[in-house]
């Protein structure tokens, strides 16, 4: 991650690494109604950390927490829920629920309201709405296995923006 260290909220990378593989009871994960987690899942379910890189695991989870926080102040986000019969989707869902819970513990500055995903070298490197601004925080690169709206590849970045008015 680059950007504001304060955005880490004093939570250690070790703890964050643990979150990404932590266990929720399956029933809890299935039935838990959590709009923030649904946004985290909808926005990031196709992303994976870099293989054998605990720092990447922690980075991805921190980015998910920021997305969870932002989802409460910006409605232009995508929400989705997993297929409970799909074990891979359920792993991503559990990470999303954990990120939502962690986001309750700390708040980003109120004017951190936007984020953008980009596969390096594909499409515009930043959205028009961010023109002239440097990201508040940058996470990645991650592996995008989901394809679809962001091209598949190993160089997916998440950019968090502050002060877009």
């Amino acid at each position, binding site marked *: 991650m680059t950007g504001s260290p304060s955005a880490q909220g004093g939570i250690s990378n070790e703890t964050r690494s643990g979150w990404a593989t932590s266990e929720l009871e399956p029933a809890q994960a299935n039935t838990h109604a959590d709009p923030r987690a649904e946004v985290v899942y909808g*926005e990031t379910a196709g992303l994976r950390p870099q293989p054998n890189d605990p720092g990447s695991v922690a980075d991805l989870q921190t980015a998910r927490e920021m997305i969870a926080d932002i989802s409460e102040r*910006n*409605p*232009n*986000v*995508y*929400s989705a829920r997993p297929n409970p019969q799909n074990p891979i989707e359920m792993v991503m869902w559990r990470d999303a629920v954990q990120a939502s819970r962690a986001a309750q513990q700390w708040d980003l500055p109120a004017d951190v309201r*936007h*984020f*953008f*995903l980009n596969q390096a070298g*594909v*499409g*515009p490197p930043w*959205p*028009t*709405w961010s*023109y*002239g601004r440097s990201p508040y925080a940058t996470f990645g690169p991650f592996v995008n296995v989901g394809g679809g*709206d*962001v091209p598949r590849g190993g160089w997916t970045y998440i950019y968090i923006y502050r002060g*877009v*008015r």
Partner: protein
Amino acid sequence: MMVTAAILVALGVSASTLDGACTDGQLQAYCENVAEVRGAEDLDHLLERPADAAACLIKQLHIVRTPVLKPEDRGRLRDDFRVIWSLRALRYMTHGKNFVASPGSAQLGVKRRQFLTKRSKEEVPFFAVWMSRDIIYVAPEAAQRSIIDQWKRWYEVEGHVYHYREATSYDDWYF
């Protein structure tokens, strides 16, 4: 709307019309390239002659037949992006004015429906944006047609007397 028009006539203000409006070549060219703007500051130029600019922008509105516009399509679908940016510019210079219409019974798909109906299930805007992908979801054609008509009617009634001023948030004109 008829009442407003009657008041304008009583005040000696003629209703605005798109016919014969937007004749300035420089302004026309600016509006034709409105999709090339890089931020809100670029749109401030339109506020120097807002009624003429609004006429130019409204005249270039038309039905967009591509339901999902991705950032990488800007070169290939310039005409569609020009429509979206014309609406963004209109919203910007009218402090966020937005028109909506019934989505009808069109099949929209999961993501398109989710973004277009975020504020209301009964009425959709011309377009909605997935922030993190900068992907534009476009309303069904019947809704587009209605919204274009609403902009034209608005201009006829208020176009020359409207108190134009810029939107203060991207949320009010971009998304």
